[in-house]
């Protein structure tokens, strides 16, 4: 169903399915509201007091009725629970091949970086019909990335990555709101998501302010910050090689294994002592406070690239 009064636009693949559940619960709500209201009105008129001394017979209650009206709501909420949860889980993970965009929230703006290097503020350009995954973090406090037309929302937390994904199904400009109160101009932390035809998107990426790609920026930081001195590609340096590492399990000195994901890479940059790769000494200095969130994002983008392109055969996990 679409185009009802007081219905927000459906502009993503999940919007329709979320709305279907929404309408189902609305139907349940309306049904029971009218049921209760009409029974009450009926009883209040039918059993109104006719004489002041009236003493109606006591009714204890009724076990079958109690069971009935425990069972029916239980059944209905079970349906809603299963429906809502499965919908949520189906959409919890982005499909493979989703394009990735980095989003950084700060009081009171949204900063967006496309892997190709295009940057924008309070605007997010995306192509129609392609799944888009946002990797989000905050520079200060908790914000929340909310696009009503896509029915997606996720808090953006400092010191941590969260993500959401959507696949736009409609061209146009849609509201982007901050939905987690973040101080004085919380209401001003709004922007728009602009959905373009894929070729228009390509044109947009190419045009405007030319920035270098995130990987290229990351590579520069990798050199300038001295990462490349120790993280030698052939693994002979004092620090592990980063080739083929991203996305793969890494064994640590304490015997545990972690996956080298965004969070791990980020932590290793900011708090290197926390998880040392087996066979290496904890000698890396912390880069806490020396790199901006955007620089870290670029570094991660570069390390992803290293992970993708030249996987070392020895440690490669089969998938």
């Amino acid at each position, binding site marked *: 169903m679409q185009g009802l009064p007081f219905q927000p636009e459906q502009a993503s693949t999940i919007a329709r399915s979320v709305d279907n559940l929404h309408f189902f619960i609305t139907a349940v709500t309306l049904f029971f509201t009218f049921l209760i209201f009409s029974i009450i009105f009926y009883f209040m008129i039918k059993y109104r007091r006719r004489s002041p001394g009236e003493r109606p017979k006591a009714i204890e209650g009724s076990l079958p009725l109690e069971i009935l009206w425990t069972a029916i709501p239980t059944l209905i909420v079970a349906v809603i629970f299963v429906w809502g949860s499965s919908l949520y889980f189906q959409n919890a993970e982005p499909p493979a091949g989703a394009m990735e965009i980095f989003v950084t929230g700060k009081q009171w703006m949204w900063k967006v970086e496309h892997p190709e290097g295009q940057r924008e503020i309070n605007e997010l350009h995306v192509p129609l019909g392609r799944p888009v995954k946002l990797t989000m973090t905050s520079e200060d406090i908790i914000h929340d990335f909310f696009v009503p037309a896509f029915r997606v929302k996720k808090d953006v937390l400092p*010191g*941590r*990555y969260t993500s959401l994904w959507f696949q736009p199904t409609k061209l146009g400009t849609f509201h982007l709101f901050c939905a987690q109160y973040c101080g004085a101009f919380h209401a001003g932390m709004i922007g728009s998501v602009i959905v373009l035809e894929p070729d228009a998107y390509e044109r947009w990426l190419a045009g405007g302010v030319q920035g270098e790609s995130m990987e290229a920026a990351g590579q520069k930081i990798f050199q300038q910050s001295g990462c490349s001195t120790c993280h030698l590609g052939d693994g002979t340096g004092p620090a592990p090689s980063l080739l083929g590492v991203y996305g793969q399990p890494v064994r640590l000195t304490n015997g545990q294994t972690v996956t080298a*994901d965004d969070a791990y890479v980020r932590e290793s940059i900011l708090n290197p002592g926390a998880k040392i790769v087996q066979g290496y000494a904890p000698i890396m200095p912390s880069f806490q406070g020396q790199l901006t969130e955007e620089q870290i994002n670029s570094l991660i983008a570069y390390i992803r690239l290293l992970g993708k392109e030249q996987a070392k055969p020895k440690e490669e996990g089969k998938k």
Partner: protein
Amino acid sequence: MSQQIVPVKTYLFVFASLIGLTLLTTGVAFLDLGRFNTVVALLIAFCKMLLVVFFFMHLRHSSGLVKVVLLAGFFWLALLISLTTADYRTRSWTSSPNAWSTTAPPTHP
């Protein structure tokens, strides 16, 4: 309220056990039991608590209601801790980027 007068000997015996357990828990800390160091320490603390509660605080002679009240306290504390850790423990089950999932090693390394 405890109507019974507990013999001094019982109190002294409980006290001696408490001291013994204190020395034990301190001693065990100097042994390498891996993750069991924490388990043993908490177990000993729990035993000490039971001794204090049952003997010094006369729970032994208290009404069932008081026992239920105390149990409710611990039950709710368990709810608070278990449901909170349910979040932290399951964050690493998804592959979406999630700093806390990997920042968090198991509670008892």
